[in-house]
């Protein structure tokens, strides 16, 4: 129906992933902030995971648009 849902999913997770990755890098020296997450920079890891997922969905959306 009209749009390929993989595209908005990929775009949204790429934006959110990039946002959290940058935020994770900026706050990477803030040890107090990450005390509650057991010392793990959970923003950086989640951000990179989401960015990877987002780019994968964008790739799948692009691939399904290519004429066979």
């Amino acid at each position, binding site marked *: 129906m009209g749009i390929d849902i993989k595209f908005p999913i990929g775009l*949204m997770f790429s934006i*959110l992933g990039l946002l959290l990755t940058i*935020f994770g890098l900026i706050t990477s020296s803030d040890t107090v902030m990450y005390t509650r997450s057991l010392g793990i920079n959970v*923003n950086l890891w*989640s951000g990179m995971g989401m960015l990877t997922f987002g780019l994968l969905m964008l790739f799948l959306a692009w691939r399904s648009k290519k004429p066979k």
Partner: protein
Amino acid sequence: MIETGFTLSWIDYTVMIVYFAFVLGIGWALKRYMKDANAFLEAGRSMPAWVAGLAFISTNLGALEVMGMTGSGAKYGMLTTHFYWIGAIPAMVFLALFMMPFYYGSKARSVPEYLKLRYDEKTRGLNAILFAVMTILASGISMYALAILMEKVLGWNFHLSLVLSAAIVLGYTYLGGLSSAIYNEVLQFFIIVIGLLPIVLLCMKDLGGWSGLEQQLAPIVSNMSPHKYAPDTWTTTWKYTGSAAANPLGVEWYGIAAGLGFVLSFGYWCTNFLIVQRAMSAESATAARNTPLIGAIPKMFIPFLIIVPGIAALVLLNKHGSGFTLPEISPGHYNYDYTIIALLKQYLPAGVLGLGITALLASFMSGMAGNVSAFNTVWTYDIYQSYIRPVTDDKEGDSQHYLKVGRMATIFGVIVSIAAAYLASLFGNIMDFLQTIFSMINAPLFAVIFLGMFWKRTTGHAAFTGLLAGFVIALLHHGLTVPEGAATLVKGGWIANLHTYPVEMAQNFWTAIFAFTTSAVVTVVLSLLTKQQKTDEDLKGLVYSLTPRMGVEQVPWYQRSTTLAILVLSIGTVLTIWFW
């Protein structure tokens, strides 16, 4: 704010704003494709199987489910997985292989319309009206729960939260109809999984993995007075269901298998139009059959996302110096519904915290939008078109007219949901009671649809009477029994108290068993005593024995429904044995 409250930072709000911009953007992008009633109310029957499958499961993944099941994880442990494995998988496989060919192939646009084609107008009318009321109640209660959560946890204004959430749901369902609801459910599925995954990983790391969790859980479970539970009761599923007293669910294996595994789950997954509508929107008969099977795969793994953190919360609650706390209802009695909120606060810093809160908001909205989109279809086709303004000879004019009515029904549904939410805030118990009562139709409805699909002798008069008889017996059983410790008549015993169940869940299971059995017996007996009004030709495509078998599906072997069903049942069996 309660002690689980917290404040969000700019990054958390940014995550939320980006998510809601995409939600509304999808509705906006779909607006120009909504050219007729079929596109708006049935998604043009164009959904790929994977989209319909994820929407199928996301509709069921509302926030009351996420919050409630995490709390149940703390209260009942891995026994809660019965709602995800035996309480869902057999029903989803049955729906896919045996029922979807009739729902989809009959060209019925809704479950009530299938009842009209198979039986008669009065059976359809009864189901349509009960379903329409039930969806609005569910949507209103979900809206109320969201607003109350935002008020207590984030300190947001109750009225503002209510109106804002209603406006967002109205925005994307009005613009893009069922397609928009389904696409957003797929988006919501991914945001819920990704938003809650960090909590699972962090609490598992904190407690030393699964073996660490088991070790720390054993002394807590063994010392739960006055009960005498075995140390591994919280990490097993069937091992202690030999007697109701040996497990915290308070139900023995037969009650779980027959009550939950058969009657309740088949009644919910196979006949609830809110769920079945997702499969009916699929692009082909094969895609429609594969929809529940694709949904079943994530369904089996959702317990690891929401039940395991609940079990971990029980350990944290009893662990000295963990800093983990839950709001108390009374001294020593915790409100487990806030478990997921407390875990978000325990482990997540700004950034991913916004993601976790967005996941919760998304799950609330998927519940609301699902109900509203199912309501507008049933209202337009099964009530308005049947009783107020039937179809005319002008096919194009009709389609435009019903598109307009569908849009109006969306606005009406959201406004009435807001009213229901305010009623819930004033008379919460009464709303809970009404929802309990209306959900009692599921078990008798399954009996009637099952008999209709697989026994051509079933008659319309018998089905209608069987449906009513099952509903009345469910009401009587609820009115004559109470769960132990019930504080209000909402929980039962509002006629008299003839029997006390150890827990509310046992009462629910047996209510469903009695309702289903009564409905089935009455329908069979009356069918034998009444004349079949429909000819074999009328019932073609609606009854198993009168419908030509589908040939081998023209898709690769790995996309065939039977292949997927074998895969789903195999995974389900392995998980059940693993956590026996």
